[in-house]
């Protein structure tokens, strides 16, 4: 009886997959033309890259909630680790340290590049934040960063900065129109400010998710 359960689950999942595939093959053409709608409003969005326009202007809401969710996940992790387990760094072999010392500044530069290019081509705060976080992970692996099980004040500000700036801008433009609709003249600059703070926060949060949850053993 207990042995049969996984078989049943696999069979049902396979059935679901097949049903999904059949439904996809049967779908009618798009009823709403979203790419057209995005392209039509791109000029007013303040950026030239459609995906950045969607993320930070048309659907800025989603991004706002997303950074809040990231922060919540970090709170969860921080609540689970014991702060007294926080330990200093254990330096790794010099070879690895050298690699980390060389690569981390480059990752900062590339993160800046991805942030900048997001306005006109693929790239943006998420990718830049992920690269920034990778720098933190590499430095931690090389034993050059302590754990972040108990973040200090500066780090906490950095972690929350993206959300705070986003909310502040949203509140500031609230008089203009509905929530998170920017005046077109200011949109480009506002998006850059939001994106820069988002990059920093996403990078720090993702790095902290690793740096807080990993142990201190060498």
């Amino acid at each position: 009886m207990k042995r049969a359960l996984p078989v049943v689950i696999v069979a049902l999942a396979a059935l679901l997959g097949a049903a999904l595939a059949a439904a996809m093959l049967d779908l009618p053409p798009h009823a709403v033309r979203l790419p057209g709608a995005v392209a039509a409003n791109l000029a007013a969005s303040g950026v030239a890259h459609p995906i950045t326009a969607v993320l930070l202007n048309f659907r800025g809401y989603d991004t706002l909630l997303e950074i809040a969710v990231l922060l919540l996940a970090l709170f969860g992790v921080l609540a689970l680790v014991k702060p007294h387990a926080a330990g200093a760094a254990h330096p790794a072999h010099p070879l690895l340290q050298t690699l980390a010392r060389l690569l981390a500044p480059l990752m900062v530069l590339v993160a800046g590049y991805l942030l900048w290019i997001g306005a006109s081509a693929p790239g943006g705060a998420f990718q830049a934040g992920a690269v920034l976080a990778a720098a933190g992970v590499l430095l931690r692996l090389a034993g050059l960063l302590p754990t972040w099980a108990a973040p200090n004040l500066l780090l906490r500000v950095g972690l929350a900065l993206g959300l705070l700036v986003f909310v502040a801008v949203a509140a500031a433009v609230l008089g203009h129109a509905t929530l998170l609709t920017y005046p077109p003249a200011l949109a480009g600059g506002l998006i850059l400010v939001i994106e820069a703070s988002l990059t920093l926060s996403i990078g720090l949060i993702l790095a902290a998710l690793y740096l807080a949850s990993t142990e201190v053993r060498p």
Partner: protein
Amino acid sequence: MTLTFALAIFLLLNLIVALVRVARGPTPADRLLAALLFGTTGSAILLLLAEAMGQPSLLDTALVFALLAAITGVAFARRAWREEAPDDEPR
């Protein structure tokens, strides 16, 4: 069929063949080598795709691949490969 695309297919096939090493092992390091191979070959495929599809932004993806290629290997050597544990699953 352009040359760059044909080479991209060839490299992808190469990767898939290299997965045999993940299956054969015998040590954890041998298995991980295939994942490391994916870093180098993956960026080569992306470079070729960037040329073949006329998408220069894929160069940035290849750059990110190469920039972060070290992390998986380092994490393995520093954290995961502690002792010669027998190849069984922890319960």
